[in-house]
């Protein structure tokens, strides 16, 4: 039995679990597949229901993680496999080659400025590009660049090399290889989070067909001051400010053909985004098309009332069946059934529409489950079958917290992260019960 724990996933749940475990005296290895910790919370503009600036409340926690004497960050890393049984797990971490010596990199950005290759930015939800050598976002932790080997000319064709010439810290190393780190741990915490469903798989919702249909994460980036539009609410087709805006709830969720489950957070974040839209564009008229308005948390109902009364947001109980481009490819036409009319179908035009896609467990989860034998449910969430131990997975010594186990919002994910830390402490200090 050691006091070493591996936390898989560096979103808000993983960060909180790492901090709690570190504070409790455990040695923590936090593994994150992206170049920076922060997860999806780092992409949000504001968080409901307080409309706190997301990065403002997240980045101190990110920095505390990086600074903590008992937490070691492994970013741009994946879990190759976990073997063994509680309390003797052997965790194999693959630190992927960044082709950058992070002990030398100062995060100055000179390399990215000169890199000739453009790649759609994951952080900006493909609304704009990043370079092949890049910092995912300005508040990234660690603040070090990464070379995306699949798109870098030097790595793929042995051409270019501009970044190395420009780097004054001498941090570029094209010969870097993946590094394997083997950790003996007594417990593992899974916090792999979620990904938005690929809504192109549901062409009836017009994503990729109508230019002015965006996903909610894209909308967050549009609203954000550090995003691709500098925080100006503009629509993709012509860069003008939309006067009418529609939100479509449950795109792929609560749908027998795709996902039966409810993604939990979309009613609230659509309300939040509509309030923020109203702050950016005070005369905007917003409509939310929903099934049930799930505002169940503290101050959530008041938040919805605020959207209705102070921002004039219209809540229409209906499930739109089709979204398509309006005239000249600008704007969106939405077909929906009007409630209580015995089936009358209306078609309304909006300048812009935001889809709230189903939130699926992260793809890394299923890879992970295969290598560890952990059971996933039919939707791909890690099973936590024992009600008395809601964060225990099907494998003793491995706990799951946050969205990886079931859709939940930030406060619940943070709570579960602390629950995971408690369970780890119970198992390790309690002599294995």
């Amino acid at each position: 039995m050691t006091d070493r724990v591996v936390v898989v996933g560096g979103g808000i749940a993983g960060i909180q679990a790492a901090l709690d475990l570190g504070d409790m005296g455990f040695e923590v290895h936090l593994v994150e597949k992206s170049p920076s910790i922060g997860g999806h919370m780092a992409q949000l503009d504001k968080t409901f229901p307080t409309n706190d600036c997301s990065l403002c409340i997240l980045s101190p926690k990110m920095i505390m993680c990086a600074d903590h004497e008992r937490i070691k960050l492994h970013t741009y890393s994946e879990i190759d496999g976990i073997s063994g049984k509680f309390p003797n797990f052997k965790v194999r971490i693959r630190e992927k080659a960044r082709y950058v010596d992070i002990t030398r990199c100062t995060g100055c950005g000179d390399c990215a400025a000169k890199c000739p290759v453009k790649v759609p930015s994951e952080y900006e939800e493909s609304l704009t590009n990043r370079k092949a050598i890049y910092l995912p976002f300005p508040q990234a932790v660690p603040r070090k660049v990464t070379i995306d080997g699949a798109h870098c000319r030097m790595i793929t064709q042995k051409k270019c090399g501009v970044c190395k010439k420009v780097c004054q810290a001498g941090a570029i190393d094209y010969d870097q290889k993946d590094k394997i780190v083997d950790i003996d741990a007594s417990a593992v915490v899974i916090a792999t989070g979620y990904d938005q469903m690929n809504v192109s798989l549901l062409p009836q919702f017009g994503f990729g067909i109508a230019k002015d249909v965006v996903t909610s994460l894209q909308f967050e980036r549009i609203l954000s001051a550090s995003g691709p539009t500098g925080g100006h609410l503009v629509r993709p087709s012509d860069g003008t400010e939309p006067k009418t805006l529609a939100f479509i709830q449950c795109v792929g969720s609560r749908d027998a053909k795709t996902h039966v489950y409810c993604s939990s957070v979309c009613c609230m974040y659509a309300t939040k985004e509509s309030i923020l839209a109203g702050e950016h564009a005070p005369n905007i008229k917003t409509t939310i098309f929903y099934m049930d308005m799930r505002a169940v948390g503290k101050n959530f109902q008041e938040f919805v009332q605020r959207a209705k009364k102070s921002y004039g947001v219209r809540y229409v109980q209906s499930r739109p069946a089709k979204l398509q481009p309006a005239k000249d490819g600008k704007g969106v036409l939405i077909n929906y059934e009007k409630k209580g009319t015995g089936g009358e179908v209306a078609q309304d035009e909006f300048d812009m529409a935001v889809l709230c896609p189903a939130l699926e467990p992260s793809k890394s989860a299923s890879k992970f489950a295969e290598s560890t034998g952990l059971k996933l449910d039919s939707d791909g969430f890690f099973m936590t079958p024992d009600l008395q131990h809601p964060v225990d997975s099907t494998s003793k010594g491995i706990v799951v917290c946050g969205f990886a186990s079931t859709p939940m919002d930030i406060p619940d994910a943070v709570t579960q992260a602390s629950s995971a830390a408690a369970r780890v402490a119970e198992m390790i200090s309690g002599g294995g019960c």
Partner: protein
Amino acid sequence: MPRIGVFICHCGHNIASAVDVEKVAEFAKTLPDVVVAAHNMYSCSEEGLGAIRKSIEDNKLDRVIVAACTPRTHEPLFRRNCERAGVNKYLFEFVNIREHVSWIHAKEPEAATEKAKMLVAMGVAKAALLQPQEEMESGVIPVAVVIGGGISGLVATSTLVSQGIETHLIEREPQLGGVLKEIAVIGPEMKKTKELLDSIVKEIKSSPKAHIHLSSRMTDLSGFVGNFEITITGADKCAEKVKAGTVIVATGGREWSPQGEFGYGKMPGVITQLELERKLAKGDVPDSAAFIQCVGARVPGREYCSRFCCNASIKNAIRIIEAKPDAQVTVLHRDIMSYGTAAEKAYRDAAEKGVRFMRYGLESLPKVEMAGDELHVDVYDETLDDIVGMSVDNVVLAVPMVPIENVKDLAMMLKVPVDKLGFFLEAHVKLRPVEFATEGVFICGTARWPSSVSECIAQGLAAAAKASIPIRMGKVKIEPITAYSDPEKCIACGNCVQACPYQAIEIVTSKEGRKYAQVTEAKCKGCGNCVAACHNDAMQQKGFNTTQLSAMIDALIKNALEVAE
């Protein structure tokens, strides 16, 4: 001569949209002792913090000001940053120009910018007079107290004792289990409650570290994190004093009583959810039932949603149909809150099993009447656009959970806040859901907000994790904002001794026979009451002394008033 650096934060457009951050930085340069004034996009990011550290080094700064959001969240972060750059962390002053300026004067950018300048001037004046300080450490009594033996409190206790931490569990009823005792089956998991409760109680009782106090209440609490003294009074009125390091509040809630709603109290078949639970536990299953959701919830005067009532009704609807497959069960609702995976599946399952779901609106509430001996419900179903009538054995009112009756007394004893509804107010709704701003006290379960059983369990675990940290570490750091007196100025009048709520001051006699007031630092909580009680300027508070605060007032006067009208 102090060398002050001022760093103004844009906070993206949170501050910069209303405050002209560059102008404020320019203004800061003109203030006395300011050596450098800069502005950055996100001071709390690695880049921002690094820029501050570099500036400290380059400009040999010995005092740092950050004008940004609220010190209540980021002060520790910036203090540590100063420390990393070699500046004592108490030579740092935080100026709030976001919550206190840009966010509340959003449409008056000129006035907002002027106000930001004034606040910075005041901060600079204070910073020039700050003195380096060191944190003290205080021991932690390795004992935890859990108030409330419902599901959350039970889980918290179980987790603590299994880590080897001595824990006192205080429960006001003669048995453990709280509201959950009245519920035979937990949904949507369909787990038998007795099995769950018995298992947890067994784990607790099997540990010599657990001390269970039934039919008892906490009647007094004093002290602070690491050193609480709690009085537990039992049914026999015997009071026991317990010393503890941390406290967890798990006092739960109670079912609201819908007197007068939908015939409750008049028509015998109209019952609450808990009353239905008791019926079903006895095997008394109705042949037909109509559940009315949101009774006394999501209404003017009580706007909140009690989170789990839809799922409770769905669970009970399924139980009725499984016991009596021909039962006619209808759920009248204003949104079905079956969020997540299991609950949504249970909703579908119920519908597939034949439970009818009908949506009604606040403007047209269901009507419940006696038609002879039978209970009759009429409801306008919004989806059908028609009125549906049904005769039922029972009308089940799904009512909200509300806080327990004496929650304010408890809150006062613990020195923690409650919100307008009477639910405890956590330190930060997003990122610190099980903590209070008051250190060493934690919250879980329905006392904070109505929560499902699985959420209560997760919160109990989480609160236990947080409560175990000071105990595991064995010490807590005490902020150096304690009081101290100047024996030369003190006339030993004793005002401060009286003013101190913690009896931390006493009059002592010096070697030369001079009497003066002396503060016992370990007992001082840094409230500053003694400072205001002292009329000789002898009593001071570190970080808030009279010269510092006077200088802030002077700075405001100088910069705001001595401007041509």
